[in-house]
């Protein structure tokens, strides 16, 4: 469990992470705990640490609706603790959910027998399964886009790794009876817009993805009920796909025989076809030029160092972090400390699960005084690697550029 007092002390003095932990390197740095220095200046000015009820102080991007990202030290652990997990909402009508009266409607034109579940029934009537999976916002690192693009200016922290426990969606769908002509499953949650005219946040996934054994209706996260801000009492968990599909405060599952045409599917969350490596296709939603964002792109994050860190000379140093992809598995993480001239493989940590991130570490030995450019590049088992140059798209999705951290040893 991360030590809150140490963390707040560290953040107040602008401390960055050194090799031996957050409280031991009292020097100013280019990046800060509020995020990378290359975020838009206004984004850095308007971000500060703020604690939502029940949460640790997180990096407030916007108050209403709340968009808060996780400071880097919390990502330096195998699982992201619930009270530091990032928070993202599209719309400001945040529900106050009463577990006893919450209902999940299952039905739709392509379901034989619609029915309703209480939380108790969902827990009791369906075999619970637990799956470790990374939850990552489609727009994570959007703030690092060059040129900058409008939207929530996330740094590194719109992501978190957790153990999710719940019922398999396929088991719930089986009870409803899925008709032959079904194409998609539509999720809606209890949150909603302030104005009637604003499109409600409603998403759909292909039927085949809904019926995969790892797609679950989660009511527990890291062994506890879901935090309110992360979707209490139930959220969808669509492993390997970006978090836009992981509908929070889930209240409705509809099986449909036509592609769902709501704004947040038809217009938002689209990526240009052919620009990103995709195995999983969302055929019912593809157009000639674009497709909904689906599986995560391979990426990595250095979690114990920030740009501008100063490490003590003559002491063994470690670069460590996490790596992830859409579920094909991390093949390797290559690390460079000389700006990409030489690469050495990092040691990979234990497998936490197919859809979880994988920790890695690289021992540097005792580096000589000087300046180092530290980079980490992950490759997955289907041969996709991180990119050295941004694959630009105006919505700022899928930012997986190899990091370049300037580190001094003195």
């Amino acid at each position, binding site marked *: 469990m991360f030590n809150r007092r140490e963390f707040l002390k560290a953040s107040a003095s602008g401390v960055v992470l050194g090799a031996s932990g957050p409280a031991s390197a009292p020097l100013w740095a280019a990046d800060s705990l509020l995020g990378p220095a290359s975020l*838009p*200046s*206004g*984004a850095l*000015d*308007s*971000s500060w640490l*703020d604690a939502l*009820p029940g949460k640790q102080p997180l990096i*407030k*991007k*916007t*108050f*209403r*609706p*709340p968009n808060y990202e996780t400071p880097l030290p919390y990502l330096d652990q195998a699982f992201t603790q619930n009270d530091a997990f990032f928070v993202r909402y599209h719309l*400001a*009508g*945040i529900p106050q959910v009463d577990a006893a009266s919450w209902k999940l409607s299952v039905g739709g034109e392509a379901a034989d027998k619609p029915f309703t579940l209480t939380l108790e029934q969902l827990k009791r009537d369906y075999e619970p399964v637990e799956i470790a999976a990374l939850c990552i916002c489609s727009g994570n690192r959007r703030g690092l886009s060059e*040129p*900058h693009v*409008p*939207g*929530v*200016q996330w740094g590194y922290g719109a992501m978190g790794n957790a153990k999710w426990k719940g019922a398999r969606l396929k088991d719930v769908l089986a009870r409803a009876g899925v008709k032959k002509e079904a194409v998609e499953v539509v999720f809606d949650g209890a949150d909603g*817009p*302030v*104005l*009637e*005219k*604003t*499109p409600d946040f409603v998403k759909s996934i292909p039927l085949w993805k809904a019926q995969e054994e790892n797609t679950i209706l989660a009511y527990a996260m890291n062994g506890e009920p879901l935090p309110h801000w992360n979707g209490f009492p139930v959220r969808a968990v669509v492993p390997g796909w970006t978090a836009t599909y992981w509908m929070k405060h889930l209240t409705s599952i509809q099986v449909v025989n036509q592609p769902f045409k709501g*704004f947040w599917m038809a*217009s938002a969350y689209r990526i240009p076809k052919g620009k990103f490596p995709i195995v999983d296709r969302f055929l019912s939603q593809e157009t000639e030029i674009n497709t909904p964002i689906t599986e995560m792109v391979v990426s990595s994050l250095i979690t114990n160092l920030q740009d501008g860190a100063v490490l003590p000379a003559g002491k063994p140093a470690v670069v460590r972090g996490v790596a992830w992809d859409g579920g094909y598995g991390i093949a390797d993480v290559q690390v460079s400390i000389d700006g990409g001239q030489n690469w050495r493989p990092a040691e990979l940590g234990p497998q936490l699960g197919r859809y979880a991130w994988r920790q890695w570490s690289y021992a540097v030995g005792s580096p000589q005084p000087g300046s180092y450019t530290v980079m980490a590049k992950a490759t997955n088992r289907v041969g996709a690697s991180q990119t050295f140059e941004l694959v630009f798209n105006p919505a700022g999705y899928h930012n997986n550029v190899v990091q370049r951290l300037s580190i001094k040893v003195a």
Partner: protein
Amino acid sequence: MRRLLCALLLAGGPALADEAQIQLKDGPGAPLVEAYCVMCHSLDYIPMNSVFLDRKGWEASVNKMVKVMGAPIPSQDIPAIVDYLALQYGKP
């Protein structure tokens, strides 16, 4: 306006008290921005998206708010809002 703020207080929960910390820059058009934009979201969305949008970029954002998100901004007020955003939060 006061009725709207009361409704927001009921719907918005604790966030509104924190939002008082957000101070937008002074300038012509500021009152329009502070009245309309706050209907749906806190004002920090504006400084967060600065300073990299030019006038066209801010115009596109405001038009998206009206056309896509349904913001009830009278068309005659839009130029002053775009002018404010471009001048105070736009690319120099």
